[in-house]
């Protein structure tokens, strides 16, 4: 089954933003319901990787009857191969700040937080300057909204929204049980909307141009454009805004080095797609009618034939073992055992069938781990082991 969809470039996110004051004014002259409906009809889904419908998220928080609510911008960009959020905050910070204020207006929040990963501390001076200018304008138009920055301190798991909240509350970044979801009970147990940096930037596009302009991009179930962080064995690494729904074959045609063996879609927590399946794989959210569709936070790492897939998996597993918060046993022990297990097979201490035991372990982790980290280790593990089994053994 071949997907006929072609790679199409888009240019919304990084387009100049001298009109943020107009977009803010235009937005807050509409009712909250109108804005929510606009977002829902755009079919925007979260761009952090999980893909929850953004309009619905805002709606759920707006419906809770509670005087104190919060807006949080998730800038804890830590997925290996992802570097778009920093670029957005550097190039077009006012789009994000405006979107946060509009979200505050819609749900009834007076405080917004940007949770910025510790590795990006160097962004602070410029970002603070932008926030001061933004708040000055909010005062001028009598919009009661304040934006604060909360710094992370080096923990991948804090990109998970409930771990992020725990971290903001001064605790270990250990994910909470869901429900309750943050839209009901988030930061300080108040209704909270947490959106990825890029998601907020897309809401700006939608409020500026209307839902239709956004909806017309992409394909069914995967509307709009998306930033892709392209790295690895490619002659043109960087950040590209593309319409969703393209086939991986077209992507590799554009970004590959002519010798692409496999592409990791969605970072270490995503899937590795081998060359033989490029044509049947589409980049978008689940539910597409043809071919295999992969959700992604936008990390696209290309590997050419000089790369050992064992080394790639070994690197991912070491990453997960270190970044697992340690709270639940399937993830804490599972990541350790997977890493030790593939090394033992490689050294010949375990026979090749042991890989099947490890695959079953990832299935258990998928079912029993508490959060997306432990659940998603199975993605890269099974897609690498199943497609490159011989490289794991010899």
């Amino acid at each position, binding site marked *: 089954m071949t997907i006929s969809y072609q790679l199409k470039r888009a240019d919304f996110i990084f387009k100049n933003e001298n009109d943020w004051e107009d977009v803010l004014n235009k937005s807050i002259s509409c009712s909250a319901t109108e804005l929510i409906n606009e977002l829902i009809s755009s079919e925007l889904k979260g761009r952090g990787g999980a893909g929850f419908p953004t309009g619905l998220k805002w709606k759920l928080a707006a419906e809770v009857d509670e005087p104190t609510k919060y807006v949080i911008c998730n800038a804890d960009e830590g997925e290996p*191969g992802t*570097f778009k959020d920093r670029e957005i905050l550097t190039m077009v910070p006012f789009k994000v700040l405006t979107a946060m204020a509009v979200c505050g207006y819609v749900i009834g929040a007076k405080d917004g937080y940007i949770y910025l990963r510790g590795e990006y501390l160097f962004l602070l001076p410029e970002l603070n300057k932008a926030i001061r200018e933004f708040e000055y304008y909010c005062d001028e138009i009598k919009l009661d909204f304040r934006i604060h920055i909360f710094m992370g301190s080096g923990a991948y798991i804090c990109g998970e929204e409930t771990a992020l909240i725990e971290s*903001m509350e001064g605790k270990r970044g250990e994910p909470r049980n869901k429900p309750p979801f943050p839209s009901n009970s988030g930061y300080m147990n108040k209704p909270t909307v947490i959106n990825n940096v890029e998601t907020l930037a897309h809401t700006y596009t939608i409020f500026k141009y209307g839902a239709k302009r956004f909806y017309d991009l992409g394909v069914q179930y995967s509307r709009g454009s998306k930033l892709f962080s392209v790295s*690895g064995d490619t002659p043109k*690494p960087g950040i590209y805004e593309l319409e969703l729904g393209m086939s991986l074959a077209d992507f590799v045609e554009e970004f590959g080095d002519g010798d692409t063996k496999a592409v990791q879609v969605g970072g*270490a927590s995503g899937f590795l797609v081998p060359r033989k399946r490029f044509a049947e794989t589409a980049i978008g959210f689940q539910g597409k009618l043809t071919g295999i569709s992969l959700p992604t936070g936008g990390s696209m*790492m290309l590997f050419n034939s000089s790369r050992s897939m064992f080394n790639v998996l070994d690197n*991912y597993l070491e*990453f997960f073992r*270190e970044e697992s918060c340690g709270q639940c046993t399937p993830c804490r022990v599972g990541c350790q055992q997977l890493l030790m297990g593939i090394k033992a097979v490689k050294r010949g201490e375990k026979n090749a069938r042991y890989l099947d035991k490890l695959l079953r372990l990832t299935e258990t982790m998928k079912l029993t781990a508490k959060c997306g980290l432990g659940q998603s280790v199975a993605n890269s593990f099974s897609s690498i082991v199943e497609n490159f089994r011989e490289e794991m053994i010899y």
Partner: protein
Amino acid sequence: MNPVSELIKNLADQHGRERHNLLPILQGVVEQEKYLSEFSMIEIARELGLPASEVYGTATFYSFLEHKKMGKYIIRICKTITCSMKGKNQVLLAIEDMLKISVGETTSDGTFSLLQTNCLGFCHKAPAMLVNNEVFTDLTPEKVREILSSYLKK
């Protein structure tokens, strides 16, 4: 008053003494002291009225909150997949050779500490490293030697 106790008191005055102010206070101590000593953690617990074990539990969760004495400049070299593919080990060897320390160690004069870290978000400009809060990308052994020399002259 002990200077660390004074620093902690000032940070608590600035940020507040609630549990949700804990991380900014821990970060403030690390910024000044380069690490969290047992004494610092007990002092923070006292200042905020928290059990010391809670402060310790939070502090040791985060990889940037060091609890071992660190050098003036902390080098954190990214070891995640793309940096690893693009020559991280050669850069690391060049650093080890120049500073005569291994990963996890601090130079005897207390100038540099060398650590590895997970994805810094510069995969398109790999390999990358942080020296304190400053980022350096597209590293080569030659380039990293120049960078460290410039720090030595500071």
